C-alpha cells in the first residue's frame, strides 16, 4: 500500500472537486488500482478533531510512512508572517506543511494556488500567500529553492485553476509507479507531457486565429477570442482543448476566453479585453512569435481569409457586426 495524505491551505476546494470528476478510472478505481491508502482528506474522510491530529502526528513522528503529500491551496503566511489566517488542527497550516514535507517521499502541489500562489496571492495578497516552491515564476515559495522531498525531487506541480482530473491522476500515477524524474518535468516542475502544448492546440477557433478573423462580442461560435476578447490560449501552456473538461468541452469551445490559469502569473486580470498597442495589435503575442514576423503574418493571413469565415456559419443575419 502507498500512503497518501491530502491537505488544503488557502484553497477553495476546487481541485478536490475536480479530482472527484475523474472518469476511467474514477477516484475509487484509481485508489484501488494503485493500492493507495488515503490517510486523510478534508472532504472525503470520516475522521474529525483529535483523531486527525493523531494521524498527522504519527506521520510527522515517522510512525506512519508517508509516500505522497498532496497539497491544495496556497501556504498562508499572514498576518505578518504568523500564519494565523490559516490555522489547522491547532496550529498554522504552514507549520504542518513544513513538518510533513520534511518526511514525505513525494510532495505534489495540485492547482495554481499550491504551485504558484494563484488567486489568493494576487495583488495586494491580503493573506500573504505563496505557493509551495514558487511565488509566481520565482523559486520564492514556502519550501524554498533547494527543497527536495525524500526521493530527491522538488515539489511536483500540477498547475491549473483547477487542475484537470486527468492531469492530477497522470502525475500521481507516474509518481506511484516510480516513473517520474527531473527529466519528466518542465522549468516549473510540471509534467512535460501535460504542459508542453498551448491551450490553442485543438481549439475549434484555431482556423479563425490562423486567418486573423476576430470575434468582437461574446455569444457566437465564430471567430477567435484572442484579438479583442482577452483570450490567452495562444500563450498559455495547457492541454485544455486536447484533454477536454468533464469529457465535454473547454472554455474557448463555449466562447469564454482562456484566462491563462495554468501559468505562473495567473491571475493577470483584465480577462475579457485584449490589450493592444498603438498599431492595434495585441500586446501579448503567441508563444515564441516575434513582433516583426507576427505583423507580417497578420497582414498576409487576413487578406487570405476565406469568405465563409467572415460570415456566420449557420445563422442567417442581416448585418453581422460581430465578426472583426
Amino acid at each position, binding site marked *: 500500500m502507498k500512503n497518501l495524505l491530502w491537505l488544503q491551505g488557502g484553497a477553495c476546494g476546487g481541485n478536490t*472537486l475536480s479530482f472527484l470528476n475523474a472518469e476511467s478510472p474514477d477516484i475509487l478505481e484509481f485508489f484501488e488500482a494503485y493500492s493507495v491508502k488515503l490517510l486523510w482528506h478534508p472532504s472525503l474522510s470520516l475522521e474529525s478533531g483529535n483523531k486527525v491530529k493523531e494521524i498527522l502526528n504519527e506521520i510527522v513522528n515517522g510512525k506512519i510512512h508517508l509516500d505522497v503529500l498532496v497539497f491544495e491551496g496556497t501556504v498562508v503566511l499572514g498576518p505578518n508572517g504568523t500564519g494565523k489566517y490559516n490555522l489547522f488542527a491547532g496550529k498554522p497550516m504552514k507549520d504542518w506543511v513544513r513538518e510533513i514535507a520534511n518526511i514525505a517521499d513525494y510532495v505534489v502541489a495540485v492547482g495554481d494556488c499550491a504551485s504558484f500562489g494563484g488567486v489568493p496571492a494576487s495583488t495586494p495578497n491580503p493573506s500573504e500567500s505563496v505557493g509551495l516552491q514558487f511565488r509566481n515564476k520565482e523559486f520564492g515559495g514556502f519550501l524554498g529553492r533547494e527543497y527536495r522531498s525524500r526521493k530527491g525531487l522538488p515539489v511536483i506541480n500540477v498547475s491549473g485553476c483547477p487542475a484537470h482530473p486527468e492531469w492530477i491522476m497522470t502525475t500521481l500515477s507516474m509518481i506511484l509507479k516510480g516513473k517520474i524524474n527531473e527529466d519528466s518535468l518542465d522549468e516549473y516542475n510540471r509534467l512535460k507531457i501535460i504542459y508542453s502544448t498551448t491551450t490553442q492546440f485543438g481549439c475549434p477557433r484555431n482556423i479563425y486565429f490562423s486567418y486573423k478573423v476576430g470575434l468582437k462580442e461574446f455569444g457566437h461560435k465564430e471567430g477567435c477570442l484572442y484579438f479583442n476578447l482577452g483570450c490567452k490560449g495562444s500563450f498559455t501552456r495547457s492541454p485544455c482543448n486536447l484533454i477536454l473538461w468533464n469529457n465535454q468541452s473547454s472554455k474557448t469551445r463555449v466562447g469564454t476566453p482562456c484566462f491563462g490559469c495554468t501559468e505562473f502569473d495567473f491571475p493577470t*486580470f483584465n480577462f475579457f479585453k485584449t490589450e493592444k498597442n498603438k498599431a492595434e495589435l495585441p500586446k501579448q503575442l503567441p508563444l515564441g512569435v516575434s513582433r516583426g514576423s507576427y505583423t507580417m503574418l497578420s497582414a498576409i493571413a487576413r487578406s487570405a481569409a476565406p469568405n465563409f469565415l467572415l460570415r456566420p456559419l449557420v445563422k442567417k443575419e442581416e448585418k453581422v457586426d460581430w465578426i472583426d
Partner: protein
Amino acid sequence: MTNITISPFNRVEGDLDVEVKYEKNKVVDVKFISRLFRGLEIILRNKDPWDALVITPRVCGICGGSHLYSSASALDMIYNAEVPKNAVKIRNVLAMAETCQNDIRHTYLMFLIDSTNRLYEKYEFYPEILKRWTPLVGSSYKEAIRWSKKYTEIYAIFGGQWPHGSAIIPGGVTTDPYPNEINKALGILKNITSNYLEKVILGGDLDQFLNTVKSVKDLDQWSEDFPESDLGKIWRFGNELGWHKLGFGSGIMLSYGHFPKDEYVKEVDREKDLIFRAGIYIVNKGELVRFDQKNIMEFINKSYYKYTKGDTIGLHPFEGETNPNMSGDKGKYTLTKCFRYNLNGELITPEVGALAMLTVGQNPLILDIVNKLGPSVLARVIARIVRVSIYHKLIEDELEAFEFGKPTYKKPNEEKEGKGYGLVEAPRGALGHWISVKDGKIYNYQMVTPTEINMGPEDPSNNKSHVAKALIGTEVVDVSNPVEVYHIIRSHDACMVCNVH
C-alpha cells in the same frame, strides 16, 4: 461543564473549529471558529468589474457557478443589461446542474457517512447502513461518486468546464449552443434520471414522485412502496434514529428566490418573475413575509475585522467593509462576519439552504414536513433530495425551451459608475454579491454567503445565529463522540471557503 473543541471539523468545504460547551450531556453553548482568510473582496478592489467573473467563482470549488451567477447579475443591474430568454435558460441550467452535483455529493460524501458512526451499532439496520453509506466502499457512496460528476458534464457543455467556468457574463452567456449540444445535455440528464435518480435514490418513477408525494403521509407511503430506495431508507432510519427531532434552530426560513422565468432588463421581481420566489417563512406562525435586500446587515463585534465607524454597528453590504484585524480586541474569535436581517425592527437570525428555499417556494411536501415535524436534520436531507428531483424536471424544461437561432447574449453598455446586487440560491442557500463601481473599476465588492447566515457569530445583543440555536439544548449520547453535533452542523451543508472568502 465540559468544554470540547473539535479541531478540525471536516467535511465542511474548508477549515472549521467547533467549540462546544456541555452540561452533562447537554449542549449549552457553541462557537464556530472559521480558520481561513484569503481576502478576495480586497483583491477585487480597483479591478475591472468583469474580472469578478473570474475571481468570484474561485471563492468556492463546489458552488463557484453560483458566485458567477451572482456576480453577473449584479453587473447586469449596473449596466442595465437586457438578458435574452435563451441566456436566462442557459444560466438556469448551469446553476441547477451545479446544485444537483452539490446536493448528491453533500448528501453522500459529507452527511450520510456519519450514519456509519459506532453509536448506531445497536440498531438492527446498522449493517444495511454500512452496506450503503460507508465512505469509499458503500454501494450508494460509490454510486454517488459515479453519478454526481455527470451533472458537471451538463455544466461543461454550456459552461466550458466545471469547476470554475466563467460562461455567465453581463448581458447573457458566452456560449451559443447548437441543437446537438442541447440534445446531448438532455441525453445525459435522462441517463442520470433513469439509471441513478430513479434506481438508487427514489426507487421509483420521477414523475410519479413529483406528482404524488406531497405530504408526510405520502412520503411514508412512498417509503413503504419503495423500501429499497435510499430515500425510503433515509426517511425510515432517520425517523428511528431521531433525526426528525434534531436541530430545529431559529425556525425562520429565508430564501432570496431563484431562476428568472423569462428575459429581463436589469433585475426581476423576486416575488413574481422567479421560478422559486423570495421571502421569509416564520415556521411557528405559518406566515410568509416579503424579503427586501435593503434590510440585510453585517456585524463584526465578534469577528476579526474593523469597521471605520466602530465595531458595534451593522452595515448594509453596499456600505460593507473588509478590514481584517486579528490583534487585540477581546471577545473576537472568528473570521466570519455576522449576518442579520431587520424584520420590522427586529434583527432575525434565519436559516438558509435547500429546506428554506423549498419552504419559502411553497413546495407542498417540504412545507408539510416543516409544519408537522419541524425544520429538522432529517427535513434538510429530504429537502436536498426533493430539490434534485425538481431540478431534473426544470433542467429538461429549460433546455426544451431553448430556441436555436435566437441570441444568447446582448452586449450591454458598460456604465462607469453604479451599484448592483445579484441574489441567487446557491446550493447551500441564499447568496448575494453587492458591487459598487466607480471610474469603471470595482470600488467595493461584498459577498454575503449562506454559511455566514447560518453559522455566523453573535450580534451585539448576543443573539446566536441559526445553527448555534439548533445545537444549544441538544442532548448527546456520548460527548466524546457527539454524532448529534456532526449531524446538525453537516445537515446545513456548511461551506467554510464561502463563509470566509
